[in-house]
């Protein structure tokens, strides 16, 4: 999904939604009794966009990508139906639909397997990545010892490790989850470190004059401050976790969408291939949207979200 388009639309909607008259603040002065109105545009909190406005904004942000998708779909249908390309290479949408419904129970089972691997991998990557980011941001020694390794490890093509993982851990769940973690870990660490380091030094000074210990400073200042960065990293991580799980299944598995893809490939079963691809994408999209919702709930205050109407918050 085009995230930018959604945000832009949100901002436009917010601009039209704000701008109510400001309440006036009377200052209790000694001797003077002037009423000072606040500067325009800062009055109170901007009202929350109404449901109708949100719906309009969402529709406004969606119709363009929807149109492009519809055009692509039509092109696919046309090419397949006219058999410009033989149907064993490109099936018609109808054939894909038939395959999907006929084999639904099987496909659903495999989808759940891949979904489980992905979610497990993502959650582990998020937890480990955050822990590593905190360690790197707080300890100079760990920063020097760990950070270069994390960066360097990114050079190793992790997909190439997949066969090794299968040799070590067999055909079960473990190698897929490990692969998903390995791939999704990196963006979490990088964004977490960037976020934790972006704390305004003045705020840390402030915390020091309040006599706050490191834990309180982390909880009340550094962590919330890092959240916008972190959420961006998590969004990348969740899509990468899908890749990790599927690649793990490619290398050696007896279930999961990656396994089905290999089967369909071997049998030249194009409709099944297409159905499988659609399900894989669906996993990625659903998880991405879930992280977006989490972001909207956690950091409604952030500039990229301010009064923003996104696809997922309405």
């Amino acid at each position: 999904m085009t995230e930018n388009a959604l945000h832009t639309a949100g901002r436009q909607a917010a601009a039209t939604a704000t701008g109510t008259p400001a309440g006036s603040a009377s200052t209790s002065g000694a001797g003077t009794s002037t009423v000072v109105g606040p500067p325009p545009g800062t009055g109170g909190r901007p009202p929350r966009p109404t449901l109708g406005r949100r719906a309009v904004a969402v529709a406004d942000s969606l119709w363009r990508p929807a149109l492009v998708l519809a055009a692509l779909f039509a092109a696919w249908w046309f090419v397949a139906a006219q058999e410009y390309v033989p149907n064993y290479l490109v099936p018609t949408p109808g054939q894909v639909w038939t395959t999907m419904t006929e084999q639904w129970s099987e496909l659903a089972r495999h989808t759940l397997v891949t979904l489980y691997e992905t979610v497990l991998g993502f959650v582990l990557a998020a937890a480990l990545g955050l822990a590593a980011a905190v360690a790197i941001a707080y300890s100079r020694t760990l920063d020097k010892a760990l950070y270069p390794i994390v960066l360097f490890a990114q050079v190793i093509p992790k997909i190439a490790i997949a066969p090794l993982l299968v040799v070590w851990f067999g055909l079960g769940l473990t190698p897929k989850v490990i692969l998903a973690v390995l791939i999704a870990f990196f963006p979490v660490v990088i964004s977490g470190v960037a976020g934790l380091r972006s704390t305004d030094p003045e705020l840390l000074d402030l915390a020091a004059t309040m006599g706050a210990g490191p834990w309180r400073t982390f909880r009340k200042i550094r962590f919330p401050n890092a959240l916008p960065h972190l959420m961006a990293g998590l969004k990348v991580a969740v899509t990468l976790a899908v890749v990790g799980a599927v690649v793990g299944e490619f290398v050696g598995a007896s279930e999961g969408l990656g396994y089905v893809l290999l089967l369909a490939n071997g049998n030249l079963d194009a409709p099944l291939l297409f159905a499988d691809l659609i399900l894989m994408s669906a996993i990625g999209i659903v998880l991405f949207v879930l992280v977006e919702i989490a972001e909207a709930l956690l950091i409604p205050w952030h500039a990229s979200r301010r009064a923003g109407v996104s696809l997922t918050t309405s």
Partner: protein
Amino acid sequence: MTAAPARTGTAIGMAGLTVRFSTRRSQTTALDDVSLDIEPGEFVTIVGPSGCGKSTLLKIVAGLVRPTSGEVSLLERPVRGPQKEIGFVFQKAALLEWRGARANILLQAEMRGMDRTKAARRADELIEMTGLTGFEKALPHELSGGMQQRVALCRALLHAPPVLLMDEPFGALDALTREQMNAELHRIWRETGTTVVLVTHSIAEAVFLGTRVVVMSARPGRIIRTFPVELPAHRDYAQVMSDPRFDRLATDLRGLLGSAAANH
């Protein structure tokens, strides 16, 4: 001063403070041999050209910057690390952008583990006093610059600190609100007997609020002179402005500052 609890000795002592900042490209001497003793209950205002080390001086007293040489003491104890018996108003408001005005003020209470209900009541008083009523929930980006500074001021006052360090707290306020805030701060100081050090670029503010005005030279910052302010402890804004003693002192300060800036 008024209503003095047992006060002996100095609230803030600075002796021979020198600060040098070395960056890769250059070395700056921000402060050069600054000595100043401030008694409990005093209101000292500091004026000086931009970049002469006023903010640095306050941060040294707060224990946030370590001087290259010299000694600082706060409430009779040597300053070794960050001090918590103070309220600090930074030059920038330094608010948490994810918290509303009231929650930003209450950060002070949360970080210190103060009693919640008491802190909440005091926050409401301060909000009312600074004219922030109606904006309790507004996020910093929804507030004007002056309102943000008022929130920062409330935050620094919440725990009723014995020493208040203020770095141009009213710089972003319009003239009228600034006068009101000056009068308000004067009242708070009179009623609480807090020791205040306030950095400002406004000569009128320095004279109206201060019991002593400290003038600093351009970099490297030295104390050129300190003026006692011969005005009554209880001041009214309009009266002070028309007082001939105010005029004389303001003229002196303006002359001194002009030459301090020109000397550079």
